[in-house]
């Protein structure tokens, strides 16, 4: 009998530690499937960051290094510059890592048009440390450090990273996607594929922001989390292509 589904070779057999309903697992799988479909697993080196996905090096079935908090784009720069052009380098970063402590590194890696792919998982909260405010936390959103809800007067307003990076001349491809239902998951996969394909073709900096859930720290059930994502997070962070200067054949 012909199997109708097999687990992607891009992931190891290790069970993930993610909470029920967290969409990190989905994003891992989409990334891994893309690497497999592009036949890139054996030539890829990933960079895990600090946050819930710190153990990503146990899950991706490729060589992985682990970066200090926020520094993944710098580590990826060093890796990419040291490796031959046929090697693929990606970072996998959360919103605290990328948009707060690592905002300098991501901006400059983008400005240099480093030929790397950045996977930015935005769930508007710090997960690993217990639900504190992230730079992407929505106005009014309650977190451990904004118990009355994030107030623009005292905590500032959310940072829209995709839009911000798109103002730079460096990056080649920037898209924001969501994973709250199957249709969006497929769109997300398409975006990831375009990004990795572009890197393989030496195009330059590619960035995919994926809106993601955090049921545990949002205080919602997995299903309610997906609803909240589609209703509120997608509204504050509209999915779409923010920059695309790739050649037609890459697209």
């Amino acid at each position, binding site marked *: 009998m012909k199997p109708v589904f097999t687990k992607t070779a891009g992931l190891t057999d290790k069970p993930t530690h993610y909470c029920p309903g967290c969409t990190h697992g989905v994003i891992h799988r989409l990334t891994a499937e893309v690497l497999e479909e592009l036949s890139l697993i054996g030539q890829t080196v990933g960079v895990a960051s600090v946050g819930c996905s*710190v153990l990503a090096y146990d899950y991706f079935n*490729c060589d992985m290094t*682990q970066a200090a908090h926020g520094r993944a784009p*710098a580590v990826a*720069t*060093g*890796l990419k*510059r040291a490796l031959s052009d046929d090697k693929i380098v990606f970072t996998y970063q959360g919103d605290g890592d990328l948009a707060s402590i690592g905002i300098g590194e991501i901006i400059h890696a983008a400005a240099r048009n480093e030929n790397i792919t950045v996977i930015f998982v935005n769930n508007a909260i710090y997960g690993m440390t217990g639900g504190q405010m992230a730079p992407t936390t929505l106005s009014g959103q309650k977190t451990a450090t904004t118990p009355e809800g994030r107030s623009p007067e005292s905590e500032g307003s959310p940072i829209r990273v995709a839009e911000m990076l798109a103002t730079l001349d460096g990056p080649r491809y920037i898209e924001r996607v969501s994973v709250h239902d199957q249709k969006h998951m497929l769109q997300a996969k398409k975006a990831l594929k375009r990004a990795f394909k572009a890197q393989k073709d030496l195009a330059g900096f590619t960035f995919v922001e994926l809106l993601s859930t955090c049921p545990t720290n949002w205080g919602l059930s997995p299903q309610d989390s997906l609803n909240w994502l589609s209703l509120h997070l997608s509204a504050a962070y509209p999915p779409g292509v923010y920059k695309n200067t790739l050649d037609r054949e890459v697209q």
Partner: protein
Amino acid sequence: MTKLLMKGNEVIGEAAIQAGCYHFFGYPITPQSELVAYMAKRLPEEGGTFVQAESEVAAINMVYGAASAGVRAMTSSSSPGFSLKQEGISYLAGAELPAVIVNVARGGPGLGNIQPAQSDYFQATRGGGHGDYYTPVLAPFTLQETIELTAEAFRLADVYRTPVVLLTDGLLGQMMEPVVFQQSSTPVQTESHNDWALQGTGGIRAPRSVTSLELNASGLEKRNLKLQEKYQLINQSEQQADVYFAEDADWFVTAYGSVARTALSAVKHARSEGVNVGLIRPVSLWPFPTETYSALCEKTDQILVVEMSAGQMIDDVKLSVNSSVEVVFYGRMGGAVPDPEEIFDVIIENAKGVPKK
């Protein structure tokens, strides 16, 4: 062999290239900036990689990335920037990655000034960042020795899979003197990192990871024990020091780096006036050459420590000698550089207190 008149900072750059380092990540800061500029010019000529990073923090993490791929990588800075690199150095130590970090030290604390200083000794020799780790620290005192110790730094980094610090200062970075590069016709032999470096599985081996994370306490303790074993081995095998006038000296001055040059001038001057004094010059600051000091304990009742700091290396000197040796100190701070006359006066003053043997 051609003698070249070169600036200290540039000597480090050329020495690194000749030691097989083709990946450099830097950030401008006085008094090391010439090194960054030198690499920007030279590395592309050699087919290497130069990146001017957005910060010291980014630069050390670029080194971390390049080192993960198994290549010889280096970054350089001066004191305030060296502080910023400590996070990355701790990660390099934890992940056991080889790298060389240059500190062309200047006056502190804080922004301090840009004049030569040795006040980063504690930071350099005690790990500097968080966690139980050390980095080998080498302190050249001439530009020729800078060439040798830059190569040695890469050797130590490779052999022991550890970040290594080359500690100089603004004086050695800015001065010029003639140097000779012993150009070898064969490529530099570097350690093979085939067993751990990340270059993609090629579909023929299991995936590897480079990390300093170990959530399990017993696992992390085991990892630390392994690190400590390595440090013990380095401590036993890699101590380096030079002793001047060991045969007939009644007592010793001790100093490292640029101050050792000035101290050597002063020691020679004092000897010409009949003072039987010698000089102990640590070359490796970590591991500290305790064996050199303890071996000289029998000969000397006094050691005069001269540093451009409030007294940092003096702690290591005291730990290396028994209580019969009186350890005295002369230091300048804040970028003030003692001149030979000044140290000569201190030697003469202290010589009065030294009983003749």
